[in-house]
């Protein structure tokens, strides 16, 4: 029971990566590999701030802000210097590999018993979890509830934002840049803003993930962009083509389902070395199976 709840909590934390990838890849069609670096950046900055004695909320927000800056960097490489999306992300995430190591000081730093945002959330939701009859697992249930509330809040804010004039213009710019420019929108700057939002969410996920596992590691972000895509595609495969709200919910559901699949596979005897390969396999399956079922024309699955 405790393991299951904990698995879901990690899945919920990673749902923020899925939301971030949804913004960059689905709304802006920008395959942003900055995700790998900004996830670590969020964890690294939050950990360093926590270790230095800052408030957990401030530390988490600091990690998130650092992610936004990384996203802006990638966006500017693309919008101002005209570098291709994939290469912009690679340049930024390569830079972040050094930045993360410099900020953290070494490759792995434990939180060493510092109070975390998760513990604060757990304390807030504990009475509710006890009342719901979780007994021994009340702590884990409270953490999961807190994380789900956080993710739901993030998804609700995104949903509201992308229905404002600015958000709608951003979606329009991501969908059809010619149309947005003809209507007076600077699509380059809209992409920069979109990547800032996307990487802020990813870094927030990293900050929370680091606090969940109790340490930050410079390697922890490797493969995160694939994880995010797997979640988005899996969610879309589960829920189908829907509007903005449904697609956001699908990304969250995809992440939690995916985490559960991974945990089940590991318990069933999958060697951890094969974890990344199975992630890629899930992305492949989530892309291809719906296409086979609906017999859509070739090349339409990635959108």
């Amino acid at each position, binding site marked *: 029971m405790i393991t299951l709840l904990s698995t879901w909590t990690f899945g919920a934390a990673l749902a923020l990566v899925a939301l971030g990838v949804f913004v960059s890849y689905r709304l802006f069609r920008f395959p942003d590999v900055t995700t790998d670096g900004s996830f670590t950046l969020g964890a690294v900055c939050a950990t360093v701030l926590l270790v230095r004695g800052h408030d957990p909320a401030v530390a988490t927000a600091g990690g998130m802000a650092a992610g936004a800056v990384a996203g802006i960097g990638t966006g500017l490489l693309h919008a101002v210097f005209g570098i291709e999306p994939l290469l912009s992300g690679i340049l930024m995430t390569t830079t972040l590999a050094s930045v993360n190591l410099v900020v953290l000081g070494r490759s792995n730093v434990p939180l060493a018993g510092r109070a975390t945002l998760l513990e604060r959330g757990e304390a807030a939701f504990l009475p509710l979890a006890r009342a719901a009859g979780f007994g021994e697992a009340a702590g884990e249930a409270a953490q999961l509830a807190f994380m789900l509330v956080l993710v739901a809040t993030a998804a609700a804010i995104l949903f509201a*934002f992308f*229905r*404002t*004039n*600015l*958000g*709608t*213009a951003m*979606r*329009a710019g991501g*969908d*059809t840049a*010619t*149309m*947005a*420019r*003809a*209507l*007076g*929108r*600077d*699509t380059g700057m809209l992409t920069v803003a979109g990547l800032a939002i996307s990487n802020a969410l990813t870094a927030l996920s990293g900050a929370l993930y680091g606090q969940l596992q109790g340490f930050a590691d410079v390697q922890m972000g490797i493969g995160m962009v694939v994880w995010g895509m797997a979640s988005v595609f899996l969610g879309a495969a589960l829920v189908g083509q829907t509007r903005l709200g449904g697609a956001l919910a699908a990304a969250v559901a995809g992440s939690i389902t995916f985490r559960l699949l991974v945990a089940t596979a590991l318990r069933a005897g999958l060697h951890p070395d094969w974890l990344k390969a199975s992630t890629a396999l899930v992305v492949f399956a989530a892309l291809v199976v719906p296409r086979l079922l609906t017999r859509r024309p070739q090349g339409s699955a990635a959108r």
Partner: protein
Amino acid sequence: MLDVSAATVAFTAPGGPVVRAVDGVSFQVPAGTFVVVIGTNGSGKSTLLGSIAGTVRLDSGRIAVAGHDVTRWSEQRRARFLGRVFQDPRAGTASSLTVLENLAVAARRGRPAGLAWATTRRLREEAAGRLAAIQPGLETRLDQPIGSMSGGQRQVVSLVMATWHRPEVLLLDEHTAALDPAAADRVVKATARLVRDQGLTALMVTHSLEQAAALGDRLLLVHRGRIALDVEGGSEAPPLGRGSRRPLRPPPPRRPARRRRRPHPPRPLRLTPA
């Protein structure tokens, strides 16, 4: 009012000569005039339209819209004055957004986007009214993704988007070329109606002489980057070029070709520069 003076756009083919796609073109479009630009493929008409829209930079010359020198303005900045409809319906509308959301983006043309709700009830009512006036039935599809609509319907919505706020100049880039004849006819009618109702100044690139005659007040024939012919239609308009006194009309129906006894060599086409 649009003022193009000595506009030149040159391209250099790799290892090849410099090609002047637009070669010192000058013309003015007074307010309320519908100008049709025709020309063969590669004549430079699309480059000319692009240089007005801001997608192609001038090498020399000047472009002014409504008294503002926009030569160095970006495409998105020029959008303050320009309404544009593209040849490809997919280029002028965002497929994944609903019809109403597309119109909401158009309703902010020339204004800061801001954080107010995009699709308000007021916008919905106004959108329904405008669409119903131009093509009855479209107003029932406000909440559908525009990608689910036909090309012709998308072009009509595109027209409504481009003219939501009255543009100083409406630029139409072969906007019926990708449509079947029936849809093209509906789009031409919608264009004529919007232009007439709003008293718009418009510049349309087309291959169709029939459309040129139906919509245009004035015809520019672009050939090898220059205006080869500038014909003003309408009996009240002053003649500009040789043989331009008659109003523009669709060409008469073609008679079956008669057999000629003696084939004679083709005469070279002589065009009078404007």
